[in-house]
């Protein structure tokens, strides 16, 4: 088991190195001149040259990448003393557009995205697993048909359309909720909750659609297993059989997929944040796209990739723990 964990972890580190190198390369190699993007359209050439040197764009790409990776562990200072800028470790670069270290920008936006992702996750698992279980237990009855319809429609709803409908219905027409304005949970928990209610439901409905189907099919499959028949034969109460045995077996693969989806969301709920104007990682990325702010784009891509790879690895290890057959492969 230790060997398995070790192997998976090393693979994850290698994966992250490849992803980071590729991300770094593609963002530095694509624009014709990354230094020119550091100041506006009517920029004097001297300023561009000074910035090029200061940010290290004059050095070979491999050296730039090395400096970047080193900065993550030791922090980084740009420019000569006097006019230098220091970003403490873990440094993910410096945004000229915003005159801020990228790490602090990410640190200030990540809690927003985490709030969105966490609430949505709780809701979608509740709706998805709940409706899916109901559909499986009432197979062929109207509950099953409602759940199936919900999942087909949910899968077909583009996130931005559902978000706009929600704003239309709950904010503009009925006035039940104010237009979301994000407040930190420590500043005002009630406002925080009110601002996130709509985004949570939008994401939850769309994600839950897939989970309804997965839960339903998973439960129906487990119901055919021998151990369930044994449970029925020896007279286990139905409720106990479902909760203790069927759900437990059916939910393992679903929870692991949910972990991956959650990690993906942590990297920035781009569409939701944009519609509800929430200052999270996704919004940071979109603003950086508009301003061609490369350091931010490199950093947000890498942070999101770390979430994905870490979640993948944890899920794999958990799976190996639960099912020894996986380990040997």
């Amino acid at each position, binding site marked *: 088991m230790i060997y398995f964990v070790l192997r998976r972890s090393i693979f994850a580190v290698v994966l992250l190195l490849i992803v980071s190198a*590729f991300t770094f390369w593609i963002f530095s190699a*694509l624009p014709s001149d990354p230094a020119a993007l550091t100041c506006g359209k009517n920029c004097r050439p001297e300023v561009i040259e000074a910035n090029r040197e200061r940010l290290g764009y004059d050095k070979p790409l491999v050296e730039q990448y090395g400096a970047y990776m080193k900065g993550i562990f030791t922090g980084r200072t740009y420019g000569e003393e006097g006019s230098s800028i220091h970003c403490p470790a873990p440094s993910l670069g410096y945004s000229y557009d915003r005159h801020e270290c990228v790490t602090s920008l990410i640190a200030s936006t990540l809690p927003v995205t985490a709030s969105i992702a966490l609430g949505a996750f709780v809701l979608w698992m509740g709706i998805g697993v709940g409706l899916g279980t109901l559909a499986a237990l009432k197979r062929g009855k109207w509950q099953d048909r409602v759940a199936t319809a919900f999942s087909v429609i949910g899968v077909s709803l583009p996130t*931005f359309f559902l978000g706009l*409908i929600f704003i*239309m219905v709950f904010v503009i027409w009925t006035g039940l909720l104010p237009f979301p304005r994000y407040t930190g949970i420590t500043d005002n928990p009630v406002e925080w909750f009110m601002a996130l209610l709509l985004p949570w439901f939008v994401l939850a409905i769309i994600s839950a659609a897939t989970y309804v189907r997965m839960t339903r099919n998973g439960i129906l499959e487990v119901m055919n297993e021998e151990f369930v028949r044994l449970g029925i034969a020896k007279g286990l109460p139905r409720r106990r059989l479902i909760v203790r045995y069927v759900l437990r077996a059916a939910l393992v693969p679903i929870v692991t997929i949910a972990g991956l989806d959650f990690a993906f969301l942590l990297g920035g709920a781009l569409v939701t944040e944009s519609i509800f104007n929430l200052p999270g990682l996704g919004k940071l990325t979109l603003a950086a796209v508009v301003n061609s702010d490369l350091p931010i784009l490199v950093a947000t891509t890498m942070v*999101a990739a770390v979430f994905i790879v870490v979640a993948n690895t944890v899920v794999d290890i958990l799976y190996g723990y639960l099912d020894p057959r996986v380990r040997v492969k």
Partner: protein
Amino acid sequence: METAQSVSGVEMAVGLSPFQMGLARIRRNRGAIIAFWIVVFYVFVAAFAPVLVKLLNIDPYALDREAINDFGLPAGPLGGISWDHPFGVEPGTGRDILGRLMYGARISLLVGTIGTILTTTVGVTLGIVAGLRRGFVDSLISRLGDVTLAFPSLLLIIALANPMTQRLESLGIPAGNTARITYILTVLTFFGWVYMARLVRGQVLSLREREFVEAARSFGAGTGHLVFKQLLPNLWPQIIVFVSLSLPGYVALEATLSFLGVGLLAPAASWGIMLGDSVRYYRADPTYLFIPGLTLMALVLAFNLLGDGLRDAFDPRSDRQQL
């Protein structure tokens, strides 16, 4: 349990190929048939959009000052719905919404279809190569898939849209929306091939051990014969199901990118652009939000229902793939 089902299925339909059996099954699925005709309708409208627009006299690019009032909003209720403009007009310009929706269908279906063809071709090819060659080639392709899946795809697609489009334009691809569509299709293929490849690889690994493949090999069949005459006919059902389930995803993705301002650019009549535009007006003109939104949703829903029907017909045992 599944053996009992398939055995009875075989007895019912002696002499039918899996493909014909699937077709027979889907004909009995009413929802899928309705969905099929909805898709056919969209394809028809998209194909004949220029003609239809002339016939109905709804030029999608013509500004109609008469149809909007002094505030730039559509004159008349419900977003200016009238005989001249059956779905109303666009606020600010007075362009006809129905005409724009018809042209938008062309973009959606173009991106969806070509994107699916590209990802499927690349995915199937790499999957077959990995499954047949095994060994080093297989590990290489599989690890490449792992790396691809480690990227936050949507984020990267959005982040790279502008620099990549400029790069494509400097390589001689016509600037503007041609370059933008080329970019979208390229990244779709880049990130989309993995699922298809994994599916096909798994199938090929198990098919290659079956007797009929062995028999063909013992007769000295070449790789070409193995791939096209022995393997592919057995892969079609899964490929069809996969294709029909990825199409709606790509249609929605194009709309999402255009909505966020990194897909196609105005004055193209993409549904995503219309929806993005409607955000500025939705207090005063909700019709402009709902009509394009429902148009998009109906197509995606029809594709999904059709895909579900195909999956039930061709691949009754498999769960829905996570796309």
